[in-house]
């Protein structure tokens, strides 16, 4: 039954996309050959279905029954409106493909398609697919709509393709979603061949298709629940539609609108793919006779698909471009310093020498997770395509899609460029036997686990690529559970977490799990501001540099009549990761007694106003942090609401911000802040608190019931050996992951074994 459900989920989504697309394409069908209509219809329909799913998710009506109703309505509409008939009739086709190259194409395409089918229909085990792409799809499917995406940065990315995965998932679960991604790749293959035929180079079209289809990275990515090939297909769709628009003397506005829709869909699919919409705008402004009108139409249609995602993020986080651009739109969901550190990592991965990057992305594929294949060493030859107009257009679009690549040098981030590159390369090398030879050799080298395949002979076997053709798992002759356990340690970890914790449990860890297979709330340290704060609290139990050892004491010469105190950071640090941290702010009267904190006090800070209470909660393990590099002018402020006598202000801080210095501004008269003369002393003390237990106690208070710790990660030995000091209890271990339960805190008693 499961294979049928998978195939139904896949086919239903495909059919619905085609039906919706047919309604749109029927209006522009005259501009196309017969063969071009369906691949374009699929892309347009997928954009429409993605938007429909977005609205359903927003309304919490994303259910299988609603989708079936929409499917029926779309079928009736397409039938009654004559859209289906218009798709089938009245169009001429391309001239037949040249026989020998076509036979070769089929000989290569069909075996690869079998491998694609098996890998996509087998249980989903890809890292990102099983963690966040389908993790969020699963959440939405269970909740019937959007469910707290701000709790992880991945949930804040645009999810236009995930919406289509959701359609498939509702019927066929994970594998159906992965197959939908494969469908986009097939669509792209079809379009490449169509483009070759349209420009009179059918062999180049077929060669380009095989260059793409047999690339090792494309194979594994295109058969996983990823979004890269879908993004590439959408981008090429934009290019294709505008090429048709430019070709047509009437410049049909419908083609422009369709291109605009796909341009917006590219943003909805993947932020960085929005450059294709930019390319479209430049192309239209360059070639249009009515520039303003055409540009406006294109931009407006793009917004139809792009704006919903911006609005969602604006509502959830106050940052329409979340999880990026947090400096422009400061928010409580993602820390500015995280974005900087994360972006820094994405720009370099583990590539030590950037001159090796071409070799890395084409042949090695270890540091940048995946190789395109030896053929792509020939990419510079694509420049020969500049000789003809189509070549120039293709390479121009390739350049645009390449533009965001330095922001993330993972090989996958080259995929949006590939359709243009392979087409240009095939045009540049437009010699029958040369192309046929390259198609054959490239396919041979890309074939999974073929002993003579070079990938297997080298260290590159560790790169991300197909590991066989799991047709038995695809048909579920091998049980899904058995396959997943055999192939994925992270799956075993996810199942172990589920079995060792109660439903609804929150688990804090520094490594993600395949959320698509877990029913627990895994809070991964780096994935959101909240999780980073929880991690900071946890590590306060472990890391002395986070302890409130530094006490800055400001003694005021005139204690009377203080209404407001502003503590201002004054040092411009040169250490990029040095934040300004305050564990506690304490005020003392002339008698040396601390002023009890009153609920009428108003606390404020800039930046990070959301966490200011953590500097006033009397906990040694929580602290207000700037969460961006310390700079002069940052402040933490207390408005007492009434005059107080304050002789001493203590700022309890830590050694992990050694360069930060402070001064005090005081308001005595309403609205007037004055810098005061003061004596400043610094003391280094050893906290007398039980820091480990305080950390877990605070976590427990914040709803975290468990800690997941990999055996080789920071602090793992300490957690294991000092369970009593932490107040935790090891409840199990799986594939290098230890799970600890945080025991309820009972003062004066030992709770751990």
């Amino acid at each position: 039954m499961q294979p049928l459900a998978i195939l139904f989920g896949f086919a239903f989504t495909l059919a619905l996309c085609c039906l919706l697309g047919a309604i749109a394409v029927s209006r522009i069908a005259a501009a196309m050959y017969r063969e071009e209509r369906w691949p374009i219809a699929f892309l347009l329909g997928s954009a429409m279905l993605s938007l429909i799913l977005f609205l359903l998710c927003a309304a919490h009506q994303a259910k299988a029954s609603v989708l079936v109703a929409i499917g029926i309505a779309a079928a009736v509409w397409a039938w009654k409106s004559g859209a289906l008939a218009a798709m089938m009739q009245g169009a001429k086709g391309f001239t037949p493909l040249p026989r020998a190259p076509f036979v070769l194409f089929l000989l290569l395409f069909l075996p690869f398609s079998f491998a694609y089918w098996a890998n996509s229909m087998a249980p989903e085990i890809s890292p990102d697919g099983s963690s966040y792409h389908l993790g969020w799809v699963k959440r939405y499917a269970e909740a019937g709509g959007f469910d707290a995406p701000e709790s992880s940065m991945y949930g804040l990315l645009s999810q236009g393709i995930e919406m289509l995965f959701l359609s498939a998932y509702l019927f066929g679960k994970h594998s159906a979603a992965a197959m939908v991604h494969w469908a986009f790749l097939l669509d792209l293959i079809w379009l490449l061949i169509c483009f070759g035929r349209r420009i009179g180079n059918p062999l180049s079209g077929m060669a380009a298709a095989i260059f793409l289809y047999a690339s090792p990275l494309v194979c594994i990515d295109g058969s996983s629940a990823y979004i890269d090939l879908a993004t590439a297909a959408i981008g090429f769709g934009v290019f294709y539609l505008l090429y048709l628009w430019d070709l047509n003397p009437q410049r049909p506005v419908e083609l422009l609108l369709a291109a605009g829709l796909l341009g917006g869909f590219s943003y909805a699919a993947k932020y960085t793919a929005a450059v294709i919409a930019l390319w479209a705008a430049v192309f239209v402004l360059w070639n249009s006779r009515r520039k303003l009108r055409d540009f406006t139409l294109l931009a407006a249609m793009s917004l139809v698909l792009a704006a919903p995602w911006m609005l969602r993020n604006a509502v959830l986080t106050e940052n329409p471009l979340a999880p990026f651009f947090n400096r422009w739109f400061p928010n409580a969901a993602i820390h500015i310093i995280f974005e900087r550190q994360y972006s820094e990592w994405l720009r370099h991965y583990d590539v030590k020498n950037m001159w090796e990057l071409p070799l890395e992305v084409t042949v090695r594929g270890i540091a940048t997770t995946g190789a395109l294949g030896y053929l792509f060493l020939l990419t510079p030859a694509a420049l020969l395509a500049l000789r003809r107009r189509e070549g120039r257009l293709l390479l121009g679009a390739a350049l645009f899609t390449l533009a965001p690549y330095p922001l993330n040098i993972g090989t996958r981030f080259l995929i949006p460029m590939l359709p243009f590159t392979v087409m240009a390369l095939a045009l540049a090398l437009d010699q029958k036997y040369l192309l046929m030879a390259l198609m054959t050799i490239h396919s041979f080298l890309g074939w999974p686990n073929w002993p003579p395949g070079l990938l297997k002979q080298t260290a590159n076997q560790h790169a991300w690529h197909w590991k066989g053709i799991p047709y038995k798992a695809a048909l579920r002759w091998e049980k899904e559970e058995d396959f997943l356990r055999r192939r994925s340690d992270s799956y075993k970890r996810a199942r172990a977490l589920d079995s060792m914790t109660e439903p609804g449990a929150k688990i804090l860890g520094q490594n993600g799990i395949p959320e698509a297979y877990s029913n627990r709330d895994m809070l991964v340290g780096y994935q959101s501001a909240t999780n980073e704060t929880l991690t900071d609290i946890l590590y306060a139990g472990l890391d002395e540099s986070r302890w409130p050892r530094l006490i800055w004491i400001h003694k005021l010469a005139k204690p009377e009549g203080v209404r407001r105190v502003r503590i201002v950071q004054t040092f411009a640090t040169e250490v990029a990761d040095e934040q300004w941290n305050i564990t506690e702010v304490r005020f003392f009267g002339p008698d040396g007694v601390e002023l009890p904190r009153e609920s009428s006090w108003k606390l404020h800070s800039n930046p990070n106003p959301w966490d200011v209470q953590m500097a006033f909660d009397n906990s040694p393990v929580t602290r207000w942090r700037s969460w961006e590099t310390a700079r002069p002018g940052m402040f933490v402020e207390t408005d007492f609401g009434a005059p107080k006598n304050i002789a001493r202000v203590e700022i309890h801080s830590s050694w992990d911000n050694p360069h930060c210095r402070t001064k005090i501004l005081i308001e005595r008269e309403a609205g007037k802040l004055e810098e005061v003369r003061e004596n400043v002393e610094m003391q280094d003390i050893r906290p007398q608190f039980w820091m480990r237990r305080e950390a877990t106690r605070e976590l427990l208070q914040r709803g975290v019931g468990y800690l997941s710790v990999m055996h080789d990660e920071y602090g793992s030995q300490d957690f294991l050996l000092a369970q009593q000091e932490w107040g935790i209890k090891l409840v199990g271990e799986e594939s290098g992951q230890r799970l600890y339960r945080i025991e309820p805190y009972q003062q004066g008693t030992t709770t751990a074994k």
Partner: protein
Amino acid sequence: VVKTVLTAALLLGASGCVKMPESYAPPVQRKPALAGEIPQSTRHLLRMSDVETDTFIVQDIPKGDRNQWRWTGPRPTVRLYVSSTAAFKFHAEYSISDATFQRTGPVTLRFLVNDKMLAEQRHDKTGNFTFDKPIPEQLLKANSENDLAIEVDKVFIAEADGAKLGFILSAIGLSR
């Protein structure tokens, strides 16, 4: 079209106006526990019934068993992390079984720290035993993992499956 563009632009523009929270009241005050309340850790001592014991085993102690004791092989070894080397004792609780003693006769156990001999213990009769001996600081490595092993000179070889049985171990590790 113009209306759509304007509306979208307005909505986007509005979303760009980030509303920062103005102020908060002081939160509920925590009452942190003092260091004097810290319980003594026993994690340096591995009891065979503890679930985490398996993670420290290097060899010759079967994993996955949750009984109070386990049969060892000829050289049961565990690996423990210590942050300081001062004042540790090698602690072991074990039994010499009648079943093996009848075949092996008296046995000698050698207690090793990082492959260096700490002590030797000869057993001429069966029974339950406890071993406790201070470890010279130079035998331990601070801030790193240390191997503790007990080597038995004669093992019982089971006829059924050829398994080599040393003695019965209940606890092994470091104490203070």
